[in-house]
């Protein structure tokens, strides 16, 4: 028998022995053994080069005063009100007046808000921002398709109802900078 064969024979017999002796190991113990051992060796090298202490410290008596500091910052429980209404009829009268006042204020505020929400109240900046940020996915074709889809509904002349005078158009074309156009292209 060659030397290698003898060695393998020994290893196989040993394995059988260990598996029959009733002992067991944690799952995957031998699979991670090499890595665990290497970790341990490297850990020892780190300990030799540095320390197992961080070098950090705390102010004197810090832990002694900690408990009180935490208790000071704990949420306080709300104390229940002990006010008693001696005259219940006055209470109901006051409550109904307060409820009516709240209702009137609410109606007025809501109406004001509704009135203030119209197209004229939107600033140009807000409109520009909306067009820039909210219509990013809409290209020329999508807009054209949208117009075609709603042509009947919108009326055929909807885009041309605002007439622009020749003077305004000429002024606009003379004032516009080429760079502005390039920027808008980009």
């Amino acid at each position, binding site marked *: 028998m060659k030397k290698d064969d003898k060695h393998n024979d020994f290893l196989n017999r040993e394995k059988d022995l260990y598996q029959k002796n009733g002992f067991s190991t944690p799952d995957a113990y031998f699979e991670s053994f090499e*890595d665990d051992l290497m*970790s341990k060796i490297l850990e020892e090298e780190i300990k030799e080069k*540095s*320390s197992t*202490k*961080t070098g950090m410290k705390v102010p004197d008596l810090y*832990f002694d005063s900690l*408990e009180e500091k935490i208790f000071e910052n*704990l949420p306080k429980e709300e104390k229940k009100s002990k006010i008693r209404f001696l005259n219940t009829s006055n209470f109901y009268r006051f409550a109904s007046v307060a409820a009516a006042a709240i209702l009137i204020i609410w109606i007025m505020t809501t109406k004001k808000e509704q009135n203030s929400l119209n197209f004229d109240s939107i600033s140009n900046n807000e409109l520009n921002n909306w067009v820039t940020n909210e219509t990013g996915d809409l290209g020329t074709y999508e807009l054209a398709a949208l117009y075609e889809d709603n042509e009947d509904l919108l009326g055929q002349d909807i885009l041309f109802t605002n007439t622009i005078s020749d003077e305004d158009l000429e002024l606009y074309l003379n004032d516009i900078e080429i760079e502005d156009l390039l920027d808008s292209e980009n």
Partner: protein
Amino acid sequence: MIDEKKLIQELKHPKSKEKAFRVLISVYKERLYWHIRKIVISHDDADDVLQNTFIKVFKNIENFKEESKLYSWMYRIATNESITFINKRAKQKNISLEEMQTKMIDNLESDSYFEGDHAQIQLQKAISRLPQKQQLVFNMKYFDDLKYQEIADILETSVGALKASYHHAVKKIEEFLRTN
């Protein structure tokens, strides 16, 4: 030795809550402090995070379902609070997390509550260069000597994954210390 089950019951009962909470603080304040301190580095920040951790524990103890051990639940809260704290700081300063951690270690040298030597500063520098999970695993295993299973319970991960993280961590740290 505290009876954890009894302590939890007392913490959940309004009448005994305050007394039990004092016991809880006295048992866990130092362990949690050092766990937090190793993450946030400065004492003042560790103090803030520790107090927030205990306040969270106090406010949420009724929701603690006892599926895990009390200490692992508290460590988990402390870990989350510490990481949230660093992330917020980095965001406020408009810098990356890595830059934030480098800054924290740079400040350590002038910290009046740090008395470590050059080797200890080098070790902290090496730790700060690790990914966050490896930092946590390394700190808990190397300094706190927690068992893999305990770390796994705290970080809600497997022992196998932790062993791999620790292996990568010690390898990188040893290399850093050897070359710096």
